[in-house]
């Protein structure tokens, strides 16, 4: 297991480096610079500014400086927000984004699993059809459409929930629903099908033959096995929620990282773009790593297999 963990860790560093490099290349491949639109400034001022942010140097030197900033977790100052460093923006925006993300993932996971299990237990019953209809709707409606619908119906028309921002628990309800519905639907469908499959297994029959109660059988024998595939797709789900926060934050005017990120792309704020990208990819890669390790704990066969495989 240790060997595997070390190997996964090195792979993680590699992945982050590749993403960082790709981001750098893409940024440089796009023509223009952060100062192009500021028509008021003259040539000399522009050159000065570029020099200040090292933009006049060769790409290789810039790349080296960029890698160094990543390695030291210091992404430098923002070009467009002279009073803020990228680190400032991250430490201000990320906690809010993380809050939105974590709440949404938790809601999606809990409701998805419960919905999936109930649907499986009431296989082909009315509850099953209802749950799966909700799931299909949830998967097919994009979160920004759902968000606008929710705002229109619940905030504007009915007036029961606030329209935007992130200032109280009441404010959190709509963004969370908008962000969690898609992942919830995916998890519900997966849980249902994997639960149905597990329930036909011999070890479930055997558990029944032992005289165990239905609750024990479902929770102790079926659920742990049925959640295996759900754990595997959690990485993808998290990535989806993460990108989802950008959109949802924009729609609900939530002052999270997403806002700064979208803004920074429009404004070509290189340090912010690269800092955020690298930060988020590192975050995601770490999450994937944790998911993998969790899987090993849930399924005793995985550990052995990987030990032998290495």
């Amino acid at each position, binding site marked *: 297991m240790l060997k595997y963990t070390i190997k996964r860790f090195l792979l993680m560093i590699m992945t982050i480096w590749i993403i960082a490099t790709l981001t750098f290349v893409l940024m440089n491949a796009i023509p223009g610079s952060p100062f192009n639109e500021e028509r008021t400034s003259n040539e000399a001022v522009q050159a000065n500014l570029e020099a200040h942010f090292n933009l006049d140097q060769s790409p290789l030197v810039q790349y080296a400086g960029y890698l160094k900033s990543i390695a030291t977790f210091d992404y430098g100052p923002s070009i467009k927000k002279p009073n803020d460093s990228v680190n400032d923006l991250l430490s201000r925006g990320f906690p809010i984004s993380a809050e939105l993300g974590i709440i949404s993932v938790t809601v999606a996971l809990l409701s998805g699993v419960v919905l999936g299990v109930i649907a499986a237990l009431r296989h082909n019953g009315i509850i099953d059809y209802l749950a799966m209809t909700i799931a299909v709707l949830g998967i097919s409606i994009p979160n920004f459409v759902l968000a606008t619908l929710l705002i229109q119906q619940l905030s504007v028309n009915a007036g029961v929930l606030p329209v935007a921002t992130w200032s109280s628990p009441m404010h959190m309800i709509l963004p969370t629903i908008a962000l969690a519905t898609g992942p919830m639907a995916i998890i519900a469908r997966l849980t249902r099908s994997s639960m149905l499959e597990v329930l036909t*297994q*011999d*070890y479930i*029959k*055997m*558990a*029944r*033959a*032992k*005289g*165990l*109660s239905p609750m*024990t059988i479902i929770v*102790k*024998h079926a659920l*742990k*096995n049925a959640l295996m595939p759900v754990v595997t797709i959690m990485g993808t789900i998290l990535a989806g929620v993460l990108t989802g926060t950008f959109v949802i934050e924009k729609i609900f005017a939530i002052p999270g990282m997403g806002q700064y990120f979208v803004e920074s792309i429009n404004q070509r704020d290189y340090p912010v773009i690269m800092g955020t990208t690298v930060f988020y990819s590192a975050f995601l890669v770490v999450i994937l790593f944790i998911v993998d390790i969790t899987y090993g704990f*849930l*399924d*005793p*066969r995985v550990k*052995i297999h990987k030990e032998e495989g290495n």
Partner: protein
Amino acid sequence: MEKILEVNDLHVSFLTYGGEVKAVRGVSFDLHKGETLAIVGESGCGKSVTASSLMKLIPTPPGKISQGSIKFKDRELVNLSDKQMRKIRGVDISMIFQDPMTALNPTLTIGTQLTEGLKQHRNISNKEAKIKALEMLDLVGIPYPEERLKQYPHQFSGGMRQRIVIAIALICEPDLLIADEPTTALDVTIQAQILELFERIQQETNVAIILITHDLGVVAKVADRIAVMYAGKIIESGTKHELFYEPLHPYTQGLLNSIPRLDKKGEKLEPIDGTPPDLFSPPQGCPFTARCPHAMVACEKVYPPRYQASEEHYGECWLYDERVKKYQSS
């Protein structure tokens, strides 16, 4: 010997989209303490459904015990609720499944799976449960039981797993053990070991065993009595000796002719041609008519009466009916 199980005219069917599958159509048999009854028959004849019905473990819906009675130690099981049945399952009646590779939960340790039934049914401390579990592993012949308790199913071979499944089935000291093809998935040497284990356990615990199999070699080794099933009915039943040496029913004779025998080298094996009837609409007469070399007009129309050859031995075939005999000799 004390009679512990009495099954009478059991009917089980499954309601499917295609119609009602009449999987078991009037099965009756008894079982005594310490006895081994083998139920044999081709695939799909209703052996597993019969076995699961005894513990009321058939999936409902679509399955249903539509008629008949199952008396276990003078208690009628057919109308018990699932909750009442749970107190019987694993405690009074246990079951062993065919494939030991899938019968154990891959995510729980052997120790957990061994003791959970015990903890559910008996008021017992963890320590006592563990002691009992170690005892059971020892009984079924698993070395280093202490370490083994902490391991997961994938760390055991197929034969070992079947031993563990047997240990799980026996841990609450049931009176009846139902084994549904317990050796089919194992290779021959392991098969022999598991059968020996059954015999030893029976001697030590006096448990009654219903052994389901289509391997007549297994039957010859461990059974006391045999019931032959065909298309949801027991068409012949008797002691092992009676059935092997004086089979009544043409189907039983066919089965015996289709196994290789050491003492009759060179003789041609004769598999039974044809397939069993469709259980959606089983024939009203003898279900074996289409494949039977002795089939007569009556066979197709009317189900044959039971012919009792001895106290234990009977067959359900027209050939033994007095009227047919008279007609044939004239």
